[in-house]
């Protein structure tokens, strides 16, 4: 039966949308304001100190603190979405588009703005070597992914597990705040978290709470638990992996160059420090990730190599530590991760060849001796090849190298490498004084 009803004022006048949007904006502002203020202010407060060379523990602490603050807020915000369901959806007449925008999109502005602040902070530290747009985008997406992850997990797992997962993601992800390293994994986490949040909403609306929980958890596990992430969380080293002897310093009689943040597990970038003992000249400079010193070309000029762990190509450059000029020198092809795994390097005096020692396995646990492979790079031809396998070497010294035009001798190890054929062999005893 069609009811006859009173005319309502709403039917006579158009409803003022600006009032509705204004109220919802006000609510979001009130709920996000303290986090926004602290999250944006903290990174920016570090900027006056940006003339220091390299990021310090303080800077990383600020980034970590801002991230943890955001994680806590995301968990609280997810709890508030429950209130939104109680209030905004149940009681208040809000059109679906406005409801969707204010429940899902507007809260994302807070992590995005904090991401901008963190990005600006990082750019301020690395003006010479950071791609402006890429770093900014990476920081924004990194914090967005953290926010979405916690938001999607909270209704399914409750706040505490969601916060723990968010903080773990922070520490796993902090290392990845560079666009070239994060794109696939970040996009996966962002998209799956967003899909998980929306699916959760749909399932809970239909009353399928447990199905919704299962779907959210499966989606997030797919996004979050990758072999790399699991490996990075494990405290121990995989015994099948080679021991880590990354190149952390090279020296000559008068010069020393050392790496302060060189490990892929460390935060930030490769910080190279140069020291000339003759006049006590010291200078430091930050380089992109995975940059290693390979050898001295001349007194103040250092050959540097950079290879991403999942790439075959090694980028070469020469750094004049005295004038602080960097010149690109092309590159060479090698196996993936060779540079990260190399424990030491020796550059031939003419700069033509480079010996790299790649450790494989310790002789026994914590032994100073290890089994390794020798690689030789022909820098002019742009390729690196293995020249000898399973050589027993000492961890605390570079193999003493003696170069001739066509050979390399590793004295003390009885090894020679033919530079023409790129093959290594053990020296055979010489038969002095015998005649055939």
């Amino acid at each position, binding site marked *: 039966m069609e*009811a006859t*009803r009173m005319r309502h004022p709403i039917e006579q006048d158009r409803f003022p949308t600006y009032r509705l949007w204004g109220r919802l904006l006000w609510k979001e502002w009130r709920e996000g304001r303290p986090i926004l203020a602290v999250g944006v202010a903290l990174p920016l407060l570090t900027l006056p100190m940006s003339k220091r060379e390299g990021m310090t523990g303080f800077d990383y602490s600020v980034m970590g603190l801002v991230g943890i603050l955001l994680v806590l807020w995301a968990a609280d915000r997810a709890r508030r979405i429950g209130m939104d369901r109680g209030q905004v959806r*149940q009681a208040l007449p809000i059109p679906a588009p406005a409801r969707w925008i204010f429940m899902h999109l507007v809260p994302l502005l807070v992590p995005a703005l904090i991401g901008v602040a963190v990005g600006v902070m990082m750019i301020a530290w690395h003006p010479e070597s950071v791609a402006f747009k890429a770093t900014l985008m990476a920081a924004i997406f990194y914090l967005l992914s953290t926010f979405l992850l916690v938001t999607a997990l909270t209704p399914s797992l409750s706040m505490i597990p969601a916060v723990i997962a968010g903080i773990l993601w922070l520490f796993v992800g902090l290392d990845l705040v560079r666009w070239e390293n994060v794109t696939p994994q970040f996009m996966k986490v962002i998209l799956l978290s967003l899909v998980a949040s929306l699916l959760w909403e749909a399932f809970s609306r239909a009353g*399928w709470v447990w199905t919704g929980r299962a779907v959210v958890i499966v989606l997030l596990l797919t996004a979050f638990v990758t072999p790399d992430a699991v490996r990075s969380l494990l405290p121990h080293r995989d015994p099948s992996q080679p021991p880590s002897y990354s190149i952390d310093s090279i020296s000559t009689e008068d010069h020393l160059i050392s790496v302060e943040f060189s490990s892929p597990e460390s935060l930030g970038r490769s910080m190279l420090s140069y020291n000339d003992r003759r006049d006590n000249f010291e200078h430091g400079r930050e380089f992109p990730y995975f940059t290693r010193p390979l050898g001295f070309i001349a007194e103040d000029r250092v050959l540097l190599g950079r290879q991403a762990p999942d790439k075959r190509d090694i980028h070469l450059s020469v750094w004049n530590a005295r004038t602080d000029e960097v010149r690109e020198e092309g590159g060479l092809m090698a196996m993936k991760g060779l540079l990260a795994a190399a424990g030491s390097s020796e550059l031939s005096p003419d700069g033509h060849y480079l010996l790299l020692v790649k450790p494989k396995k310790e002789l026994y646990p914590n032994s100073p001796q290890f089994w390794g492979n020798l690689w030789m790079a022909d820098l002019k031809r742009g390729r690196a090849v293995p020249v000898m396998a399973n050589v027993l070497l000492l961890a605390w010294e570079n193999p003493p190298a003696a170069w001739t035009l066509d050979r390399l001798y590793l004295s003390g190890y009885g090894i020679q490498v033919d530079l023409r054929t790129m093959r290594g062999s053990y020296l055979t005893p010489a038969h002095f004084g015998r005649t055939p």
Partner: protein
Amino acid sequence: MDNVIETRDLTKRFGRKNLAVDSLALRVPRGSVFAFLGRNGAGKTTTIRMLLHLLDKTAGTARVLGLDSVKNALEIKRRVGFVGEGQMMYDWMTVGEMIWFCKGFYQGWNDAFAAELKTKLELPGKTKVRALSRGQQAKLALLLAMAYRPELLILDEPTTGLDVVVRRNFLEGVIELIQEEGRTVFFSSHIVHEVERVADWVGIIDNGRLIQCSPLEELKAKVKRLVMTFETVPADLAKRLPGALLVSEAGRQATAIVSDFSEDTLAAARALGPSRLEVEDLSLEDIFVALVGHPEEA
């Protein structure tokens, strides 16, 4: 009669097995105070959520204020006041902020009426919602649902969690406020004895099916208790008494609660040959227990 709520074969199924609401045909007359009764889990909240399109229905139709519950869900929310069971509110807002916030969503919001309600309900304006007692929170939810003078007020278990005194005042206060202007109140409850004082229409839902829907007085006139004394209580008493809902025996005395009480029922009772026969009125609670049949839970 003009109905503000009208459903036809309204059905909600959760999964394949759980039939929460089964082909409901509900009619709520305009201007009534309609009590929607049922045990816990009977389907009251599910029905209300479908009426306001907070939940998708599986089948059937529902019209609220003459509007389709799905197509006109927004319009219905604008014209219906709703207080849900344990309805959450933004606990960080003060009472004053909450009122100001909600005001922005209703064209018909009446500031003077809201202020009057605030005074009447003794709500502190500067206190945060989280600091309010449950009774005060329920009152605030009521204020927010009434301040725009809705044509229909839907209350889903509005007194759950409140103590006896607050509950009594709350329900009476609501009815007094809303009925001054001849508006309709539709409220669900499983605390039956409180409903009797305020409701004039009753609908009873059990296992998702509407088993009774009538004016309260009509219901009370239809369901009676017969107290009969026999030399020997007939073994087939329940079968011979038309409309018998509950029959109990204590020595020579038998008690039967019958539905659709009439002269025919009386004649059938007399035909059983009791030495004494009394017809007693029942409270709504007794009727409810007889109809849904689980006294220990009611």
